[in-house]
């Protein structure tokens, strides 16, 4: 073991031996990228099928705290990009991972983050094939920032997207909403709330493949990350040029998430999720889609929450428990805790 330091110093970003040691021991020994060039050279039979399309996406990840109940920033970075590929109908295959590390970051923490990434990639059936590290002075970053990019393959004939949503399509979510957002709020500690909540962070590649196999008519799917279910539905409704109505009584919410929201005056529809997707599918295939989703752990609590219809394009409405209705709009700025 050449790496003796316990914390990252500017030397680990200097291009010399220290940097080489950090990269070798902490990153490449775990990710084992193919080859030693600065680029990954990829081959796959999936690519060669006539009509297959490449899907390519990227996302950056920042979170405080870096480790939280149910995951860490590494898990977010792998699952987030896997999910961006998956909800577009692609089978996720390869990821890149770039790290911006703050001087003083604990190397043991980096090792834990990298181990989570490797484990999640393995679970999702993707390989982390290339990467990069940079070190910045203390105060110029918050521990570590990670950017991942992902490549996947969309099989021939598959074409899902919000524009394909049709009136009458049902809206399905794959589980309880808002766990991630509420768990992070509590984990930050500055609001002094304690809960047993854990982030819902999970890779949804297999789940999406299972759903598409059982219900090929699925028209569109999105992961409900920042801005929550409300933002995902608003974007989709706008692109589809349709109205969407969801039922308050059908929304799956854990009591603790409701508790956090009641205390801080937040709306769970806008809380972030990291392992939740919303999909639209023709009613005739809803039963098959639900059965397939529920057969996997990350979709066990899948349920129908609403329906698309003709009506004002882009309008998302929540039908309340006793028949009232309210508009579920896009969020303006971030959702702040309030007391009034």
């Amino acid at each position, binding site marked *: 073991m050449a790496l003796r330091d316990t914390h990252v110093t500017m030397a680990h970003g200097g291009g010399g031996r220290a940097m080489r040691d950090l990269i070798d021991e902490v990153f490449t020994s775990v990710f084992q990228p193919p080859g030693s060039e600065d680029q990954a050279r990829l081959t796959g039979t999936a690519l060669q099928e006539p009509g297959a399309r490449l899907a390519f996406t990227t996302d950056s990840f920042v979170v405080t705290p870096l480790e939280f109940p149910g995951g860490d920033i590494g898990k977010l970075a792998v699952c987030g990009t896997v999910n961006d590929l998956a909800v577009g109908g692609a089978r996720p295959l390869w990821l890149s991972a770039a790290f911006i590390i703050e001087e003083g970051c604990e190397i043991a923490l980096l090792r834990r983050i990298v181990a989570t990434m490797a484990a999640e990639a393995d679970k999702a059936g993707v390989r982390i094939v290339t990467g990069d590290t940079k070190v910045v002075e203390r105060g110029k970053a918050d521990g570590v920032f990670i950017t991942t990019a992902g490549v996947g393959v969309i099989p021939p004939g598959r074409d899902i997207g919000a524009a394909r949503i049709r009136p009458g399509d049902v809206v399905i979510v794959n589980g309880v909403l808002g766990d991630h957002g509420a768990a992070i709020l509590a984990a930050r500690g500055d*609001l002094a709330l304690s809960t047993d909540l854990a982030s819902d962070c999970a890779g949804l590649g297999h789940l999406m493949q299972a759903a598409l196999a059982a219900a090929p008519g699925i028209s569109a799917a999105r992961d409900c990350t920042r801005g929550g279910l409300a933002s995902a539905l608003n974007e989709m409704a706008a692109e589809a040029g349709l109205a969407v109505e969801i039922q308050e009584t059908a929304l799956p919410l854990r009591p603790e998430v409701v508790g956090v929201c009641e205390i*801080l005056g937040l709306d769970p529809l806008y809380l972030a999720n990291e392992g939740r997707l919303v999909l639209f599918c023709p009613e005739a295939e809803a039963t098959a889609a639900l059965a397939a989703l529920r057969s996997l752990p990350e979709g066990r609590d899948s349920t129908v929450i609403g329906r698309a219809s003709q009506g*004002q394009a882009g309008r998302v409405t929540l039908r309340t428990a*006793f028949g009232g*209705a*309210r508009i579920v709009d896009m969020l303006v700025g971030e959702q702040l*805790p309030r007391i009034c």
Partner: protein
Amino acid sequence: MKFASEFRDPVAARALLSAIARMADRIGASRDRPVHIMEICGGHTHSIFRYGLDKLIHDGIEFIHGPGCPVCVLPMARVDECVEIAERPGVIFTTFGDAMRVPGHRKSLMQAKSAGADIRMVYSPLDALELARRNPGREVVFFGLGFETTTPSTALSIQQAAREGLTNFSVFCNHITVPEPIRALLDDADMTLDGFIGPGHVSMVIGVHPYDFIARDYGKPLVVAGFEPTDLLQSVLMVLTQIAEGRAAIENQYARVVPEHGNPVSLAAIADVYERRPSFEWRGLGEIDASGLRIRAKYAAFDAEEKFGIGYAASSRNVPEIEGCCCGAVMTGKMKPPQCPQFGTGCSPEMPLGALMVSSEGACAAYWQYSGIRAAE
């Protein structure tokens, strides 16, 4: 959730809506000749829209959204003063999240934070107190904001700081009271209100009697109400029943939380720590006599106005509010939010002109968010 979900029961809500409809018909209320009921508290406004009660209720009932949103009535000059304090070196400025986006003349607290001021959102003044304990070298200022519901919490925090001998904790006091602006509204010759829904959590502290003058002197009914949908509907029914029976009384729908005489510990803490200002400015409503509180001289060490030489002088009050903003007319029930010429054009949640568009409790933001109305009517 116990004591909450039972009061969201759809079956009970439907029964209440039918009973309200019968009572409204009985007193001849209609879309053209509606009964005007003001829900004073912004929390009630929020519940009305959140549960869609405005659309479910009989056509003859019109809710007028009152001035009970402390963020909405906060004068711009006070926001400017917050920013001024927050930008001083060594200060940690703490605030409830509600106040972050309220525009001042120069900037909001959110903008001041991004420009480098150390501004932190807290859930409780206790959290500000804890920050002061942990940062003895910094001055921790808490933005004391709100009606009687919130006033005791800052009073108790100041008493605690005094007991601990903390020297780096102070409160920028902007606490205001509910009965005085209601009197001002009732004195307005153009007033067309038929009854009031009273803020339940204010009465949890002050009891029901501070409102006696409303029934006694002005002949209007007021029902102190809880915040769940059936609480609100039941309170509307109680107001209508009084109107139908030709009575005007102060009634308490929220007896599970509101004691007739309020909370003695909280009232004592308020009396110990605060005294009334001769008058205080309400955004959109102007100066209202005896409607604001300031920290008593014996707690001057915890008074940010004293510590930072800010004060509350009439001379600094001459900062004009934004031209064309009709928040005052909306808050007094003379105008519905979409009737304001700025609504949706000069004023939206992205670029709020008036405070009623800033706070999610504000009537304009509620119309925007929950009713989907996007432009002036």
